[in-house]
């Protein structure tokens, strides 16, 4: 069997870093091939070269046994290589069909296109209505639009970058069915994901990258998620352990919180009520866009609410801004690392100052205590194993996982009584994710109350004592994590109330 796509000796260097170093592997026709690696291992650069967005410094690619060197994505598509990006490029205010037509080189007229969209979507089980506005679609449906857009061009090879990060478990099942069907028809799939269980379930082969080099290949079915993760990071992983201590008094209480979203495409919060206790880890699951950001803003104090709807240690704080809440022991870490939790072009010490100024006592009559600030940044870097040349590097220069460790470390070192974090390990490699989860559990063990908002159900099951689901701005009643199944959570995420299970 000749390979559909074979890469040999691909190398690409950026100033200061070799993103890909002599990468070679092959993908057969109809094969589902996983590309594994930590953040910054060079996965993105590699697929960008295959898709014609980046040109290799050296090395060659062969497609169908012929030299293949796409100068731009259009050429890649013409050769039958299609890609579904992690972040969708769709216009909210256009219909599905209009969006698909925009992405095509010579789009047929609307009636024809609509017909073909219906054909393709029903053939592959990707239910979408071509006339609907994209702005009204869920993340899973948007992804289907992207996939259908690719399939309309009859690709020989489909690249998928982190496709399941925005999907419910049920939607993931649908996606996998589609991908298997495509594979049976001879379309090869290059599948990039952090979720090792999914790779085990879906992929036939896996190539593992570390620091730009191929460090191994494996057959995922024969491996465990842990063994693959260890290949990625090149060392043993520690598995965080829950400490089921007795929970103490309620520290953070939300009573009937309503918040109208300030974002026109956001989700308003309705009647959010829960108590968070000393030593407790409460996991809030749900698909992104169901009010997670709004809940975060309400708790951090960036959005103000009715004063008594949020209470910290019995005190009404709904009308207090972020700094008074920090002063009282409530610290938060928002989802978006660059631009929200950290200022991209500012140095790490400035970013340490960003939220640490008050509790770490980093000012003196308004003057910044530069040396103390640097020391605080150094402490974070050392204690949370942030890999960076120093405190004066910009936040932007760190990889996602390292910056996330910095952001989480910055808050944990300030010894919060209540810590609220949104997507603590989103887009973070396995080793960093394990470290972060470990740190969160340790914090709870020492008596803090921890609220973790996450889309990653495995993560929530792993670290939470109680789990609640946020769906269309409403929070389900927290239930003990023990004994709950992924299926039940999936149903709750879809908005179904699970009563007697």
């Amino acid at each position, binding site marked *: 069997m000749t390979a559909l796509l074979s890469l040999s000796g691909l190398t690409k260097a950026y100033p200061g870093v070799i993103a890909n170093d002599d990468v070679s592997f092959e993908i057969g026709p109809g094969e589902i091939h996983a590309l594994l690696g930590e953040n910054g291992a060079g996965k993105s650069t590699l697929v960008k070269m295959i898709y014609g967005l980046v*040109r290799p410094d050296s090395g060659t690619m062969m497609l169908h046994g012929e030299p293949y060197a796409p100068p731009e994505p259009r050429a890649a598509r013409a050769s039958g290589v299609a890609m579904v990006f992690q972040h969708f490029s769709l216009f909210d205010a256009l219909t599905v069909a209009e969006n698909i037509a925009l992405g095509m080189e010579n789009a047929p007229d609307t009636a024809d296109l609509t017909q073909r969209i219906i054909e393709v979507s029903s053939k592959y089980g990707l239910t979408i209505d071509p006339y609907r506005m994209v702005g009204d679609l869920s993340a899973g449906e948007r992804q289907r639009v992207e996939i259908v857009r690719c399939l309309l061009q009859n690709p020989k090879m489909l690249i998928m970058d982190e496709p399941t990060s925005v999907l419910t478990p049920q939607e993931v099942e649908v996606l996998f069915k589609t991908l298997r069907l495509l594979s049976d028809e001879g379309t090869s799939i290059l599948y990039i994901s952090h979720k090792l269980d999914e790779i085990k379930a879906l992929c036939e082969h896996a190539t593992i990258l570390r620091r730009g080099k191929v460090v191994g290949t494996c057959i995922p079915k024969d491996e465990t998620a842990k063994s693959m993760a260890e290949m990625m990071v090149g060392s043993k992983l520690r598995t965080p352990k829950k400490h089921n201590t007795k929970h103490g008094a309620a520290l953070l209480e939300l009573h009937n919180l309503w918040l109208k979203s300030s974002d026109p495409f956001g989700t308003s919060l309705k009647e959010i009520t829960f108590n968070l206790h000393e030593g407790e880890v409460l996991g809030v699951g749900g698909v992104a866009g169901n009010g997670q950001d709004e809940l975060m803003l309400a708790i*951090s104090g*960036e959005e103000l609410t009715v004063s008594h709807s949020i209470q910290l240690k019995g005190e009404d704080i709904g009308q207090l801004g972020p700094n008074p809440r920090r002063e009282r022991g409530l610290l938060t870490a928002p989802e*978006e690392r660059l631009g929200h939790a950290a200022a991209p*072009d*500012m140095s790490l010490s400035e970013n340490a100052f960003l939220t640490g100024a008050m509790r770490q006592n980093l000012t003196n009559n308004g*003057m910044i205590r530069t040396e103390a600030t640097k020391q605080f940044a150094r402490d974070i870097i050392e204690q949370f194993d942030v890999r960076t040349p120093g405190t004066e590097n910009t936040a932007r220069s760190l990889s996602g996982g390292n910056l996330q460790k910095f952001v989480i470390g910055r808050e944990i070192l300030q010894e919060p009584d209540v810590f609220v974090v949104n997507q603590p390990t989103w887009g973070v490699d396995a080793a960093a994710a394990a470290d972060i989860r470990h740190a969160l559990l340790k914090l709870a063990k020492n008596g803090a109350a921890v609220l973790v908002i996450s889309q990653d159900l495995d993560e929530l099951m792993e670290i939470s004592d109680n789990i609640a689901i946020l769906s269309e701005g409403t929070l389900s009643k927290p239930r003990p994590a023990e004994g709950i199944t992924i299926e039940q959570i999936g149903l709750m995420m879809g908005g179904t109330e699970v009563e007697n299970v």
Partner: protein
Amino acid sequence: MFKLERRPTPSNAMVILTPVLAVVLTMIAGGILFAILGKNPFEAIRIIFWDPLFNEVVASYTRPQLLIKAAPLITIALGLSFGYRANIWNIGAEGQFIMGAVAGGAVGLAFYPTESVLIFPLMVLAGAVGGFLWAMIPAFLKIKFNANEILVSLMLVYVAINFLGAMVTGPLRSPVGMNFPVSRNFNEYASAYNGELIANTGLHMGVFVTLAVVIVSYILLKQHIFGFQVRTAGQSPRAAKFSGVNPNVTIAICLGISGGLAGMAGLFEVTGPAGKLSTNFPLGYGFTAIIVAFLGRLNPIGILFAGLLMALTYIGGELAQFQLSVPAASVQVFQGMLLFFMLAVEILVNFRIRFKKKEVA
């Protein structure tokens, strides 16, 4: 061909080099412009950039002028730089400058002919308050209705110009001015006169205040939490809000500072170099200060040098006007080019140019 490539971290060398590069490019482009006008470009450049400082014939007049012209430019630009760092675009410093001069001048004239050492400080205060209040109009409208401060502050310049006109033809018209639209001359009123402190140096009170403002701005920006908040608000508004910076307070403070400083500069100008309120009083310092702020890269020390350089182009431009009889507009073209090149080369701070080799397919 070449392409731009993002630098991993902004280049510190380029932060310093870009203003120099902009000046050089302006000289080249300006030289070409003069050549097209039929003048010797080298002579023109020498007259503008060299003669005001070192030509023995004119320097005794032009050197003091340098400080007189630079002081208001620097003071206003420093005020603007805070807002610009926070993405708050006060384009109406000219209006705040005029309102400061009118308010401060009116307070002084109200006391005429009483003599007291308290009058001048009171006028300075009134000038700052006048500019501050004028800047509070766009601030209020932005906070309350999200009105664009660029448009509002700019439009208020023309309101201020007309207000000045109304004042000097009405309540503030000089009783001894033969009905010309001018106020009383401040150099005839000792308590309100901002004269040279040392003869023939150009050093008046405003110059010292400017120096003080440079130092205070530098400390605020580099060492104080306020400077940090302003920078964060500009670079990353959501991170700033997360860290507890109230965006509305930032808007009010930034516009307030720039308005207050522009108003104070207006007061020093009207009571000293200009000498009186008149319809000829607005010289465009408020607009030129925008160029100064950018040329100085919003850095207080940079603004100090940029203000001196811009003052030089004013004086040198005047020299070129009567020595080479180039049109008056050529100075403005020069200043415009300086801003243009400054904004163009600024990209080199965050990007570097890569020359592509021929690709082998």
